[in-house]
């Protein structure tokens, strides 16, 4: 854990008074915290704490798909994203801010085509460029050696762990500078979990990771900083080591030690 060393790190995502509602019902009360560049920032908390709502607001999927109303401000590299409208601009944002969902969601096509999907839409047409992207992305997701001889296999025929790494690779193929992960390992075996965590550690030099997780141990293992959400409220945010050993709030300690949630 490198948490306390980050005081001079650049702010990648600045959330200020972010409030999320679904048809008037509050999912997240105004929350303010920063996510620093080139770190793994985990968000922990029990179900219904608003952590996934927050994550899906970072690439505006909550706004477009779930009917969320978001107030406040979310700045990515000092640019406000909550005012972004229109298909073209949203697509551009989502190429910069990738997401991996809780359950592996390969599209019903080959491994190669799963990964080439995003770059193709973004305008990459040359076979050689796509080939290179596919290989690089699969290598980053620690999957290349397993599948390099069968890239035309259906993505849906892989094991759950492989499917999720394929989804990570697919996201990486767009060269994002932020990757959102929504409980990415909740359905995975320990080895696949380890490989995904390893990928995050290796890639965080270039990519900022926001990791929503139900697994506090995972947050302790990989996250530089951790935010604790509870019942739609940001309880506290700080270096992971501090959150786990000397939390400011009683509730944080209770949750981490498994007294509720």
């Amino acid at each position, binding site marked *: 854990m490198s948490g306390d060393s980050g005081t001079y790190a650049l702010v990648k995502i600045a959330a200020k008074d972010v409030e999320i509602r679904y048809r008037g019902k509050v999912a997240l009360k105004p929350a303010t915290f920063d996510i620093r560049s080139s770190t793994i920032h985990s968000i922990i908390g029990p179900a219904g704490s608003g952590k996934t709502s927050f994550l899906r607001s970072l*690439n505006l*999927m909550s706004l*477009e*798909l779930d009917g969320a109303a978001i107030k406040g401000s979310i700045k990515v590299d000092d640019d406000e994203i909550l005012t972004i409208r229109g*298909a*073209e601009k*949203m*697509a*551009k944002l*989502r*190429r910069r801010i*990738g*997401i991996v*969902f809780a*359950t592996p*969601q390969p*599209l*019903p096509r080959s491994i190669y085509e799963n990964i080439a*999907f*995003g770059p193709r*839409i*973004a305008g990459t047409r040359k076979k050689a460029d796509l080939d290179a992207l596919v290989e690089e992305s699969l290598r980053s997701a620690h999957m290349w050696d397993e599948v390099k001889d069968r890239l035309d296999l259906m993505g849906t025929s892989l094991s759950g762990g492989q499917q999720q790494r394929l989804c990570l690779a*697919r*996201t990486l193929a*767009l060269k994002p500078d932020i990757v959102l992960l929504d409980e990415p390992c909740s359905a995975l075996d320990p080895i696949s979990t380890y490989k995904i965590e390893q990928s995050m550690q290796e890639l965080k030099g270039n990519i900022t990771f926001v990791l929503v997780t139900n697994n506090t141990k995972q947050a302790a293992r990989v996250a530089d900083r951790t935010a604790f959400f509870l019942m739609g409220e940001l309880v506290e945010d700080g270096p992971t080591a501090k959150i786990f050993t000397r939390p400011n709030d009683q509730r944080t300690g209770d949750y981490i030690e498994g007294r509720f949630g």
Partner: protein
Amino acid sequence: MITLPRLPRLLHPRHAQVVAKAVLWAMTLATVGVLFYIIYFVLRRGLGHVGWDFLTEMPRRSGSVGGIFSTIVGTLYVTGVGVVVATPIGLGAAIYLAEYTREGRLTRIVRFGAESLAGVPSIIFGLFGFAFFVTYLRFGWSILSGGLTLAFMILPTIIRTSEEALRAVPQSYREVALSLGASKWQAIVRVVMPAAAPGILTGIILGVGRSVSETAAVIFTSGVSLKMPHSLFDSTRTMSVHFYTLTMESISEPKAYATAAVLVITILLINVAAYTLMNRFTRKFR
């Protein structure tokens, strides 16, 4: 707690179970039985007169001699026009209903309209086609008039099956596509439609089946010409209409049943194809 009055027991539950099973089984058998009997009835009288010559020769002397070649061609043309016109319109409506609207008053009205269209008797379609395409638009008795009339008839089938197929595609596919930088339209074209393709195709094939077997709507709009059609504005006679004419005008019973046999086999093949596709499609998402 309300207790129901005990009914007098006529049968031991175990025996009631057996009786119920037998009755239900008999009802099922009756349904399938009727189908098989019709097929048997038609094929037994007709199949003996069907040969290569029958399929490839032109009908002569009002169809009492020769084959049914021009009616096969006419059926293909009329059905083709119907499907080519109805598919894009139906698919467009289905995409709109499934992807671009929330369930509400408008979708209910559109769906009610489509369902009502499906319930309109085909002879009314024929009358409408005659008044509108044949007379008002001056297309005359032609492949075009018949095809357009059929297009309106099969539109509800195509809309409904396509909409169901689109709705059966998991929501997660759309989310994934959007999350990878696709616009909503790109997500529909590149991910949702390919996944729904077998279901959409099933609807189209069912539409083909309905077009091939349709008589009333076509006889008023495409006419009864036995000549080989050369353009969309030529009149033609479909197989169903040919069968009807041969029977009603007592031209030739063997030729009538032979035509019916070809028709029945064609429809059976079309339905088998549709259900095979449908099965493959539903299995994929369960």
